[in-house]
């Protein structure tokens, strides 16, 4: 079962540079979307890759959907050789995304994010604008409803802000 608190805690405690994106970011921004995995966009420098390995290794990450006998070593070298990974871990499914479609790498994603207090920890979360941008870029049929929801959310929040300023 997904344990977002544990995931954020281990990433934070190991000084991983990441932005929470995807469904969980949408939930934090106010979406009623239900999602079972955690998507994070991560910085790809050597130090960060080592920090990710230190943070997640205790939770036995394994390539989601891969045969159990497939040899897999979760280390910085493996992360360096790939870009986007989908992992199953003891604390839930975690997707590590090196590059977000429609936005770019970690630094680009950071420009579309905001720092929010989650479980009393500062956490960079993709803003609604970024979520819409990435969902539109992916262009999947199933994302259409999420784009509509996010656009409505953006409008509701805008109206809230305008009311506050009156």
């Amino acid at each position: 079962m997904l344990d977002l608190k544990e995931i954020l805690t281990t990433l934070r405690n190991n000084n991983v540079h990441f932005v929470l994106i995807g469904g969980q970011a949408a939930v934090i921004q106010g979406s009623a979307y239900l999602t079972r995995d955690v998507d994070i966009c991560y910085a790809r420098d050597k130090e960060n890759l080592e920090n990710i390995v230190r943070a997640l290794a205790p939770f036995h990450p394994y390539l989601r959907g891969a045969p159990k006998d497939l040899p897999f070593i979760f280390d910085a070298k493996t992360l360096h050789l790939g870009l986007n990974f989908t992992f199953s871990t003891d604390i839930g499914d975690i997707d590590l995304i090196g590059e977000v479609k429609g936005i770019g790498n970690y630094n680009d994603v950071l420009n579309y994010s905001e720092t929010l207090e989650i479980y009393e920890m500062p956490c960079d979360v993709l803003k609604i604008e970024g979520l819409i941008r990435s969902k539109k870029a992916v262009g999947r049929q199933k994302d259409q409803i999420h784009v509509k929801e996010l656009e409505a959310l953006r409008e509701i929040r805008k109206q809230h802000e305008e009311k506050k300023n009156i």
Partner: protein
Amino acid sequence: MAKRKKGTNRSRRPTGRATFDEMGSENINKVKEKVSDYKIRSPIQEAIDFGIDVTLLYDTLTLTPTERIELHQRMLETAEELRKAGKRKNARS
């Protein structure tokens, strides 16, 4: 400049914009069209038309980010329980 007499010209707007009385029915209809256009284009209306329950969005926006995650977590657990119950029922039948 002549001083305006107090109490005159009250109905006139300082911006020079026409009041509804002065607009005429044709212009009023144009305004109505614009308003209904906006309603169609409004993202909230579009979401409703798409089948999204926007009242849920108003509700979640009253919560803090952590509370939103906790609510989501509870919903996920409920969904998981329902899934397991369905699986058990199917296994029995």
